[in-house]
């Protein structure tokens, strides 16, 4: 369970988040939408302690992670897996080394067991046999899949996706969406997907939340959210630049 209370964050004189409140239950799948540069990725990074809030609290399973130092946060982060916008694969390593990174200091697993788990994770993201490739040899979609394999191999409780379909063609985006749904259903993880791809948000979330003007503006089930008559929601869902052009 993740709870955010009155979260605020500024970069210099530029406020990005103000009094953001929400709660995500275990096993839920939530899509967080909002405009580019609206603070979605910043919000996601607060959930896993990559950024410290200026004010407010982030509670993971009831524990406030704000006062924890970097070493204490390592324990909390074992509950999370994160797929980054640019995949953030370690470019000096092969795909197999990237995916197996979480096991590099674990002495109780043999090389054979790790290789089997890597193969299973790559199979799950439809990339079997790519163990020896380097990230530079992969396409954008393949890199995101490897990023997902790296995030799921140690079976975290919560998966965070930072714009998983950005920069991908519609067919690859569709396959990534299906992959997110498959991982959610098979591993029974809590999924939080930050996106501004409406099709993706509609499909991967049991709930859609919208960040608007630094606050959590709306939160509803997809069918309710996408039929909303609220002009701000409609403007974003319909992709209309001028709010006056919206027909409700």
């Amino acid at each position, binding site marked *: 369970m993740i709870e955010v209370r009155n979260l605020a964050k500024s970069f210099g004189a530029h406020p990005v988040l103000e009094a953001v409140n929400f709660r995500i239950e275990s096993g839920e799948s939530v899509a967080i939408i909002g405009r580019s540069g609206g603070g979605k990725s910043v919000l996601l*990074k607060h959930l*896993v*302690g*990559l950024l410290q809030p200026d004010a407010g609290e982030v509670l993971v399973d009831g524990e406030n992670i704000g006062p924890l130092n*970097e*070493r204490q*946060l*390592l*324990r909390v*982060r*074992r509950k*999370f*897996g*994160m797929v*980054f*916008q*640019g995949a*953030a*694969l*370690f*470019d000096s390593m092969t795909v197999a080394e990237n995916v197996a*990174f*979480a096991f*590099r*200091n674990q002495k109780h697993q043999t090389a054979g067991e790790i290789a089997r788990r890597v193969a299973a994770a790559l199979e799950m993201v439809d990339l079997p046999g790519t163990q020896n490739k380097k990230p530079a040899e992969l396409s954008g979609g393949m890199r995101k899949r490897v990023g997902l394999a*790296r*995030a799921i191999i140690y079976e975290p409780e919560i998966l965070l996706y930072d714009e998983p379909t950005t920069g991908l063609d519609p067919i690859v985006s569709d396959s990534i969406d299906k992959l997110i749904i498959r991982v959610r259903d098979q591993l029974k993880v809590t999924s939080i997907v930050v996106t501004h791809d409406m099709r993706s948000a509609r499909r991967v979330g049991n709930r859609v939340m919208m960040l608007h003007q630094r606050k959590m503006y709306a939160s509803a089930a997809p069918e309710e959210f996408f039929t909303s008559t609220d002009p701000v929601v409609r403007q974003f869902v319909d992709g209309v630049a001028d709010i006056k052009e919206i027909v409700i």
Partner: protein
Amino acid sequence: MNVFLNQRARYVLSELGQIALLARDIFVSALTFKVVWRDFVYQIYSIGVKSQSVVLVTGAFTGMVLGAQTYFQFHKVKMDTATLAVVSVSLCDELGPVLTALMVAGRVGASIAAEIGTMRVTEQIDALRTLATHPVDYLVLPRMLAAHVALPLLAVECIVVGIGASYMVCTQILGIEPVYLWENMLRYTHDVDIFIGLVKAFIFGGIIALIGCYKGLTCGLGAEGVGHATTEAVVFASITILISNFFLTLVMGKLVGLL
């Protein structure tokens, strides 16, 4: 003007404070034995083995030039055979560790800052953190330890090659009597000179890795940020080496009774 000086002073103090915090994290990490020895060995190769050619060339030509210049002055007062003693003491105490450190700062300090900086701007460091790995344990500690080990070894190479090259110039080109030249060098070069050089090289290794890692971990966004961090790592490490060398000379001179 006062506002500018105030801001500058705050910036410098803030940077020093952050470097001190990083040093504390490294110390804590070292105490918990978090170093992965495979990474440490790779860094020894990257910092030490790959720097050998540049350090050997620097040592050889510095030794040759120092030998020739010393001979030109000593020849006037008929002290030709003391030439290699001056070269040896200078290389052991000062030039060996300082020149080695400056060359390594240029090659390795820049490379560390660029590598870690690129990892930062491509979110690889955030990825490390989400994979429950402390960046200091994985990235900084192996480089710090490797630099502490590699620099003294490189300095010894630089000193040995410098003395050897100077000996060749003195005996083969300048025509100085080899036996007296060698005997005088042994008479005036003491164990403590070698010890001072090794201690300095050990400390300079830490300075290069610490500043390189710090600049990489705190670099700005984009290619410009990485470029800036790389330049600053080399400049700050070089200046810190030169300034700290003066104080180390004074402190160690006092400790070994030279002052």
